[in-house]
């Protein structure tokens, strides 16, 4: 169903009305901030990215044709803004940071866990991942990007994206379980 209020807000924003922009912002601020925060891994960068994303969105709002919901459109801009920044950072740091090689096979009994504390643990572990790992993991497992799409966005090969994903998952698992005492050699295909 068409969101009439949002359609009108977009129209007013296209006409340059600041109040309408603010209302659109308030409707979708959480969604945008969440995705850039997850991709950024820290609060300061996330705030910069959110500002960039919204500024970009309002600068090109006349290009919004209403094919998708405004929230979907601005979410896409946020992801692109974050990935562009990550690529810039990666040029300086090396996006394809390798996993440190420690085994990830822990005691399965230590996981699963549930509840707010565990979500916090996962959230913190996600923040600790190298940028490249975190980006690939989030884009693939949460945003639903294919490896081809991730490769395009991050400027890496499909095989690299797959490799990053497996390492990111293993690393996340290791961080969440804080390394089990019962370590079994898992090996690597490298």
């Amino acid at each position: 169903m068409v969101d009439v209020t949002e359609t009108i807000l977009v129209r007013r924003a296209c006409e340059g009305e600041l109040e309408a922009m603010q209302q659109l912002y308030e409707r979708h601020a959480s969604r945008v901030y969440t995705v850039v925060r997850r991709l950024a891994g820290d609060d300061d960068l996330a705030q910069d990215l959110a500002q960039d994303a919204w500024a970009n969105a309002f600068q090109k709002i006349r290009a919004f044709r209403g094919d998708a919901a405004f929230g979907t459109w601005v979410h896409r801009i946020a992801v692109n803004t974050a990935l562009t920044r990550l690529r810039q950072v990666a040029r300086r740091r090396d996006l394809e940071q390798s996993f440190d090689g420690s085994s990830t096979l822990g005691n399965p009994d230590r996981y699963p866990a549930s509840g707010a504390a565990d979500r916090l643990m996962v959230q913190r572990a996600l923040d600790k991942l190298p940028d490249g790992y975190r980006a690939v993991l989030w884009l693939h497992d949460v945003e639903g990007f294919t490896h081809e799409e991730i490769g395009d966005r991050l400027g890496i090969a499909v095989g690299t994206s797959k490799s990053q994903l497996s390492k990111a998952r293993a690393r996340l698992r290791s961080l969440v379980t804080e390394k089990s005492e019962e370590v079994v050699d898992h090996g690597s295909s490298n």
Partner: protein
Amino acid sequence: MVHLTNEALSELLDGGPVAGAEKHLAECPVCRGELEVLRELREELRELPALEAPPKIWDAVAERLPAGQRERRAKLGWPKLVALQAVAMAAVFVIGLGLGRWTEPEQPAPMDAPVPGLVAQQPTQEPQLPPTSLTDALAEVQRLGAQYDVALRNLEQLAAERGAQTPSLAAERLASLNALVEASRTALATDPANPTLNAYLFAALEERDAVIRQMGNSQGSQNRWR
């Protein structure tokens, strides 16, 4: 026993084929458990809660917008104008209706002219599209806005002459706004993206909500509401 590699487990998690994996998983509880842990972790990731954006972000965004946009805070956008016009349309209709009931049968209502446009119908009737074009309807709305003021003054004068209170028009306004909502929706069924019709619908819904809220607030009160 040699366990599955991280790459193999990741591939299995995504449903990809891994040679010999099925047999290995059937025999190896460690790898089965590991795969299950990865699956649960992925679910945890997907269920991470949404985050609240720090308040200062909007201020920074607003500062980055072109100066021309920042200065347009107080401008009355056309949807607001349409909202006011829709209220006027509804009010003209219900004033005529309400006054007709309230006054003596032989006394002509101050607003007995037919009201064209979206609300020119009895609230109980099935909504119908107006015969006029949207441009004509908007022009008519503006004309009715002026009549609205006249009608209100006449109503108050009549009430003063009779020494009676002005009757509550809330219910009539609500019925009229319902008719306006239905008329807008009927029209939108044939042209869902029409911005003017969407604005009408939005304005009518907003006004109807306001009327309902005011009706709720005024229940039990001796104050008249108009």
